[in-house]
């Protein structure tokens, strides 16, 4: 079973299918929790309760909303391009879910005597896989905005295009520092290389650049100009309603989960715990999920704190500050590692 990468020789095909279903199921069960978590937290940050009517403490609010969205009429404007209008949300969500496969939730464990890697896939190209899917996910945004046949959607999509290509470069360069330090592209290998010290300490500049660029890549505040509601109504998904809108919403949250998973893997030690604590193997996924929750809380915190950037500020920040800084970080890391 050397299907993709070099590390699959110990897993039969059915294990891979089960793993894919489990990861998909867990993450999609987490998504509604994440949505209510964000709304409650945002409420607290702004001195209010947040949703508190549906269910105990308002915790069933996302369920009520999903039912509401699912029952809506699939509307589309008369100027929309039917086929692309339907395909675009699918591209967005398929690429987001595919990127999940890369996040390692733990080392190789023996489950009923069968060795199983607690990750979707461990490819030899590592983070490049995420960047490839990120490049395709751009078409989900772009086609959605273009095919809507509306100026607001189109402008939102255009902003998304410019933002994505501007910050992808810095994000990639920030990662290269980690890859040089670890000496491998395999994400599980990178986690194992962090046994001595988590990389966010030696690679603190890379970590900050990666996180900043990730806010832009996932279209989160303060870089959410793609969906700046005061200027563009809703950005590229202005014309979407019902399940297609939910697809975009879930794609955004899945992207956030993927980015926090990558950040945890590359900078925060993956499933490793500090102070020499070595829990049994089944704890590993929970460690990773807990760390991801911390990173996601940071995402929400920043959204509640920082105002949205202006468009020219966004561009000059990306190209004139972040990119030179990322290049410098890469150079310094290369010199330190080689010396």
């Amino acid at each position, binding site marked *: 079973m050397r299907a993709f990468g070099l590390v699959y020789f110990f897993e039969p095909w059915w294990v891979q299918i089960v793993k894919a279903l489990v990861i998909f199921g867990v993450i999609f069960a987490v998504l509604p929790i994440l949505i209510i978590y964000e709304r409650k937290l945002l409420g607290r940050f702004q001195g209010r309760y947040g949703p508190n009517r549906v269910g105990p403490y308002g915790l069933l609010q996302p369920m009520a909303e999903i039912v509401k969205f699912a029952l809506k009429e699939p509307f589309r404007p008369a100027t929309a391009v039917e086929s692309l209008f339907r395909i675009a949300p699918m591209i967005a969500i398929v690429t987001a879910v595919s990127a999940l496969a890369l996040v390692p939730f733990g080392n190789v464990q023996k489950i009923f005597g069968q060795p199983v890697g607690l990750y979707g896939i461990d490819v030899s190209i590592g983070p490049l896989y995420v960047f*490839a899917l990120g490049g395709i996910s751009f078409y989900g945004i772009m086609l959605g905005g*273009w095919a809507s046949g509306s100026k607001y959607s189109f402008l939102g999509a*255009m902003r998304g295009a410019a933002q994505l290509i501007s910050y992808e470069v810095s994000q990639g360069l920030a990662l290269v520092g980690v890859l040089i330090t670890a000496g491998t592209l395999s994400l599980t290998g990178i986690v194992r290389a962090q046994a001595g010290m988590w990389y966010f300490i030696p690679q603190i500049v890379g970590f900050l650049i990666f996180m900043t660029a990730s806010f832009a890549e996932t279209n989160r505040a303060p870089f959410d100009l793609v969906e700046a509601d005061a200027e563009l109504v809703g950005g590229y998904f202005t014309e979407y309603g019902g399940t297609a809108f939910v697809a975009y919403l879930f794609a955004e949250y899945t992207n956030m989960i993927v980015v926090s998973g990558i950040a945890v893997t590359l900078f925060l030690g993956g499933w490793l715990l500090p102070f020499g604590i070595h829990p049994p193997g089944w704890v590993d996924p929970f460690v990773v999920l807990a760390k991801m929750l911390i990173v996601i809380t940071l995402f929400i915190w920043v959204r509640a704190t920082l105002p949205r950037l202006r468009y020219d500020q966004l561009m000059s920040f990306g190209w004139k500050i972040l990119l030179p800084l990322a290049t410098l970080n890469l150079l310094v890391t290369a010199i330190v590692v080689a010396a």
Partner: protein
Amino acid sequence: MSAVLFFIAAIVAIAGAFGVVMLRNPFYNVLSLVCHLVALAALFLLLRAEFVAAAQVVVYAGAVMVLYVFVVAYVGGADESVTHFTGGADRPGALRVLGPLFGVAVAVELCIALLGTALKGISGKGAPYVLGFGTPKQIGTEFLTTYLFPFEVASLLLLVAAIGAVVLARRRRGLEPDESLDARLRPARPAYTGTMAEVAGLVAHGDGEAGR
């Protein structure tokens, strides 16, 4: 399994290539090209060239084509006329003559290449898979040892192209002599518009002449 995937990817690649040539709307042309490039990446994956596949998607579908889509979505129209190059029904344009010529030349070249080498591979099993083939490590080693000179020449070429793009795209001269920066930043506004500070006279009116 791999045969099924190969035929799916190959059909998508060829259909995409046809779409680039046949479709009239430039936006769909670009989308066809994207489909074609992604299908090529799938073919690379089937050849176990993972790094090449990822680079194909990241560089072409994810960066180059993004710019194409960007430009075409802004300026490309569905009813854009191409008769300037192809000529009308009565007079043949340059593309009508040169297009088939180059097409035939490429087809002949491909036929020579196919008949010369590739047909031997049909009866054989193909090259054996070596562990570590197509990984970034192997490609990096090859680049910096066996293919060092072509690699460096290619990077020099890319550098020249990048500098050339900057030189061509930059604004050649500064402001026009009779054009002040102030007028460019503050366009004319209709009367009775502006901020409270301007009404109170705390700051200069945006454009006093047009306002009155």
